[in-house]
């Protein structure tokens, strides 16, 4: 897998995703709560969506023709908040209200209180269905906006994901792009670490193809791959597209990468300092 931060073509995206990584680490450390591993695997795709792919305006967050994004794996909320803050939907300092009373930054995204959040999620399997509803709503009303949705591989154990997959295909939702954050780990490490206990997670491409989807496999940490995936999705008609994004849980922080214990562990002061240093920050707290 290609290393991130090395490409010269996407400087802005690299800067933004790095900044969002720093923010989410600091916020989770500050709040003493939240997830880290999943947001770190998701954040490059989120950055590409908000800074390159989607038609959105933070100053006009409810404009009718905006593209929609649904974070179906809602527990990666802090990753999304960090990107929304970079984009200008909220102040950096508001990030530090995460998970506290009266905050707009709930542990799981709440569409009613934070502009930019298009659907309340957190109970897994539901967001993709809502995204199907949005894409279907665009179709039947002849509206041109596109709908994007990120799901997790652990989340894909929910049967509702496949109910949604079936309906998206039935209604030929070529205005829908789902990104699978395929980091191959979940909270208790089932997907990739222990083959005896693993939930079957192979043949992912075949599964989605058999549901009638346009399947594109990408490196979920390569901006070239991600943007090319989005570009190719637009070329395919009468089929929804899934980008199967190979990602690394904990991506960007060496001692967090591929360690399921960092699903929702809170870094100590020392760990935070080490992590920030890896992101080229001084590490001073």
């Amino acid at each position, binding site marked *: 897998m290609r290393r991130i931060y090395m490409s010269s073509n996407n400087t802005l995206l690299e800067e933004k995703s790095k900044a969002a990584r720093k923010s989410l680490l600091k916020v989770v450390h500050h709040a003493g709560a939240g997830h880290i591993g999943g947001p770190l695997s998701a954040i490059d795709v989120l950055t590409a969506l908000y800074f390159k792919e989607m038609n959105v305006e933070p100053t006009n967050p409810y404009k009718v023709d905006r593209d929609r994004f649904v974070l179906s794996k809602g527990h990666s909320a802090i990753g999304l908040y960090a990107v929304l803050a970079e984009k200008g939907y909220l102040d950096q300092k508001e990030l530090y209200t995460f998970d506290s009373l009266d905050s707009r930054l709930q542990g799981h995204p709440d569409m009613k209180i934070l502009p930019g959040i298009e659907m*309340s999620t957190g109970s897994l399997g539901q967001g993709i*269905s*809502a995204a199907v509803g949005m894409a279907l709503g665009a179709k039947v009303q002849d509206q041109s906006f596109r709908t994007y949705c990120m799901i997790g591989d652990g989340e894909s154990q929910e049967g509702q994901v496949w109910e949604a997959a079936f309906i998206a295909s039935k*209604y030929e939702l070529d205005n829908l792009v789902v990104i699978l954050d395929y980091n191959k780990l979940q909270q208790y490490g089932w997907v990739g670490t222990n083959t005896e206990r693993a939930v079957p997670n192979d043949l992912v491409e075949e599964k989605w193809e058999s549901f009638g989807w346009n399947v594109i496999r990408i490196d979920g940490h390569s901006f070239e791959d991600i943007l090319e995936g989005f570009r190719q999705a637009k070329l395919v008609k009468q089929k929804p597209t899934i980008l199967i994004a190979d990602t690394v849980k904990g991506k960007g922080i060496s001692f967090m990468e591929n360690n399921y214990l960092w699903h929702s562990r809170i870094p100590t002061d020392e760990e935070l300092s080490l992590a920030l240093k890896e992101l080229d920050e001084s590490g001073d707290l």
Partner: protein
Amino acid sequence: MQASQLKTASMRDSFSETLYQLAVNDPRVFVLDGDLATSTKIEKVAKECPQKFLQMGIAEQNMLSVAAGLATTGLQPWAVTFAAFMSKRALDQIQVQIAQPKLNVKMIGAYSGLLTGVTGKTHQALEDIAIFRSLANMTVLAPADSVETAKMMEWANQYDGPVYIRLARDNYPILFDDSYVFKPNKGVVLNEGTDLTIISTGTATSRALEAAKILKQNNISSAVVHLPSIKPIDQELIIEMAVKTKAIVTVEEHSIYGGLGGAIAEILAANAPTPIEFVGVKDRNSESASNEALLEKYEISTKYIVEAGQRVNLRKNSDFN
């Protein structure tokens, strides 16, 4: 008039016709089916207005989440399935994506209660009122007849927010005429009385009216209040009737736990403690059988309403009520 002498009509037909009219006339309205269109009769929309009909397959969880997504785009989805599946199978989706964000989704629980066409306990819904009224932002309605069904749906269509309507499968006496105006938060006094008040919801109201007639023959004067809106609920009228008659019987085709009776008990315990008898399905599971057999075995027929009226009338006049 005794309810059994009244003309009956199909609640399903009324529902189907009204939904068809809404779909034709309101560009926002789309109808979502969980592959029960022949049972619920929304096939009329599918056949005559197919562009407004969305087949979601046998996947209720996805159907309700899709409805939420559609609602965010400015549409007004009407999701239709059996009450059992709406209230239990899709509950988490409804809470997280419809009730909490207060999205404009109308949820139809067809085939509610016990009388679901010999389908048995998997298809009966005896918990849906309790479940839906415990959800913040939710409106919970249950019409008594075909006329009220149509009026209620027209109201729901112009209301901005989630609404659950519990419908019945079979034909029921027509209690209202076209001049009837449905108002949420308002009960309807169908019969005046002085000794006790029978409060009912949904199609149980026709049996409540019959029971009042029989009680009158036994020299017990019973008021009958129909509550088509369980949430919001007409607290003022409930308290007024409790204070006036000093005895209450609640009647519902639902579990005695957490439904109409529970809602009324909560209000009266806090405002006007009054003896109450609860007519509803006790703490047990049901089965498939004829309507008459089920009403008897599960103790919700007219006879049981009459007995509850007699009991509460005795209690109100005793020192230990």
